[in-house]
């Protein structure tokens, strides 16, 4: 009995071993294409071992193109643009690509193989979205209900994002909450600082993530973020930039302002910041500093219900009111609007902008979901 089992196992092992050896040798000599360089979006070079498909090569470099069929060439999710370094269109790709895509040099990454240096293009988001391991280095009260959280990146140690984009913060289980959730927060730090991100997080009563951040998260703890994502960022243009944001909606605006300051963008910038009372205002000093750094920047805070002891002599009323007054005095023909805040506030502001001739295609917003 034992010998029978032994013979069976040994002979199977023998057959598979032999075939494996043959394959390994073949791989070594037949499928050896040496080292190849893949240049992505003209900004990143990867040195990889040639011979396997583009999809799996990219995967091994932690760049994940979507793929539903596991590389069998049926789902067409793995499309990517290959500019140079690839053979003619394969018959397995043809049925899944339309004329326009073929003209645009779109290929299926699971079908083309890396055999030489390649020049490819993949959507920025895919190329950039990563999971970051970070450490909390600072938790600071901005107001009674908004905290600034600074996350120092550990692995990967650098992030490249456009000012205005957001990241997803992944919570750890705490107290009664057993699952992790992820919530999106705009990055408040400058996009030229690659080693950390700042988030502004406002306590939402009963909010799973915000409660965690406000009451359970401590400095030096490790947290994970995924990003960057989102299409709220500064658009090209000549005209005035009008920003409206209240509360923690300040975050992406700060990042945009930092960019404007850093890159000396010479456009007129006006930022309307809405709050209820004086104790909801924050970052005033930083804003005044930015006013000095950016040539033509005005910061206009407005309180909707100032307390008597606030001694408030600035703008009052809902943020739409000073905005309305301002727009009726300015030339809006080429202005762009950047809004961040609750959907209600955004919609109210959009109405005001449209009323003053700023069309929807010049209004960009980042609503809190």
């Amino acid at each position: 009995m034992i010998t029978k089992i032994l013979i069976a196992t040994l002979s199977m092992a023998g057959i598979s071993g032999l075939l494996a050896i043959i394959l390994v040798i073949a791989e070594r000599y037949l499928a050896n294409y040496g080292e190849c360089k893949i240049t992505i979006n003209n900004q990143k070079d990867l040195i990889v071992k040639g011979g396997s498909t583009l999809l799996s090569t990219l995967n091994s470099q932690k760049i994940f193109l979507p793929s539903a069929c596991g590389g069998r060439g049926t789902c067409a999710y793995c499309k990517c643009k290959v500019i140079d370094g690839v053979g003619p269109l394969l018959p397995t790709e043809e049925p899944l690509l339309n004329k326009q895509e073929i003209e645009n040099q779109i290929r299926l990454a699971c079908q083309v193989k890396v055999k030489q240096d390649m020049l490819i293009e993949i959507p920025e988001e895919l190329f950039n979205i990563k999971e970051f391991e970070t450490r909390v280095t600072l938790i600071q009260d901005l107001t009674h209900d908004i905290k600034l959280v600074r996350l120092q990146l550990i692995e990967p140690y650098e992030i490249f994002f456009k000012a205005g984009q957001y990241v997803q913060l992944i919570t750890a289980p705490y107290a009664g909450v057993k699952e992790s959730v992820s919530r999106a927060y705009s990055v408040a730090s400058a996009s030229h600082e690659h080693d950390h991100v700042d988030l502004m997080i406002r306590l939402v009563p009963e909010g799973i993530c915000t409660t965690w951040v406000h009451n359970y998260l401590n400095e030096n703890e490790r947290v994970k973020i995924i990003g960057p994502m989102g299409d709220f960022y500064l658009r090209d243009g000549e005209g005035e930039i009008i920003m409206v944001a209240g509360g923690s909606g300040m975050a992406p605006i700060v990042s945009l302002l930092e960019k404007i300051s850093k890159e000396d963008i010479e456009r007129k910038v006006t930022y309307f910041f809405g709050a209820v009372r004086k104790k909801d205002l924050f970052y005033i000093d930083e804003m005044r500093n930015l006013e000095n750094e950016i040539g033509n920047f005005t910061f206009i805070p407005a309180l909707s219900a100032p307390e008597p002891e606030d001694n408030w002599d600035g703008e009052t009323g809902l943020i739409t009111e000073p905005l309305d007054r301002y727009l009726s005095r300015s030339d809006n023909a080429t202005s762009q609007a950047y809004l961040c805040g609750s959907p209600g506030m955004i919609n109210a502001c959009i109405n005001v902008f449209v009323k003053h001739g700023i069309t929807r295609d010049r209004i960009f917003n980042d609503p809190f979901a």
Partner: protein
Amino acid sequence: MEGLSPWVIFFASIFTGNILLVYFLGMCSFLSVSKQVKTSLGLGLAVVFVLTITSALNYIVYYYILEPLNIEYLRYIAFIIVIASVVQLLEMIIERISETLYINLGIFLPLITVNCAILGVSLFMVIRKYTFIQSVLFGAGSGIGWMLAILAMAGIRARLNEQKIPPALRGPGIALIISGIMAMAFIGFSGIVQIQ
């Protein structure tokens, strides 16, 4: 099956015992790759190629290793391993030899690694006790039969594009109905020769 001429087996496996339309093996690639005649031809050739080679190799593995050691019951595993590695090996070789050959044939090889028609042929050849020559021709014949079927299917499907098909039946639905009709047509061949 000593008495049967290998050529009878060859032709019989193309028509009367068509591996696809009579035994319904290799259906998945038959349905998914039959959208264009050109690709079907490539896939069909790859199947012919792989079937011929693997039936020869599996014959050797079965009669010279498995049977003497009394471990025929392991043939499923052994056959699958042989098929998978041979397919990979062939792909690498073809890729090196010629780009055109690779584009027209080699690229399809990975798609048929797990094609059940390939395993089916190896198992049939054992069950029906074919000799070596018979097995090889049976493999080649089955491959050609498979290619014939997928080519016919692709031709029909190309025509279908211009037809009005009820929306619910478009795509896989109508493809299945057509394969059913084709299978019935092939039943007409059966009875001419018996090879099992």
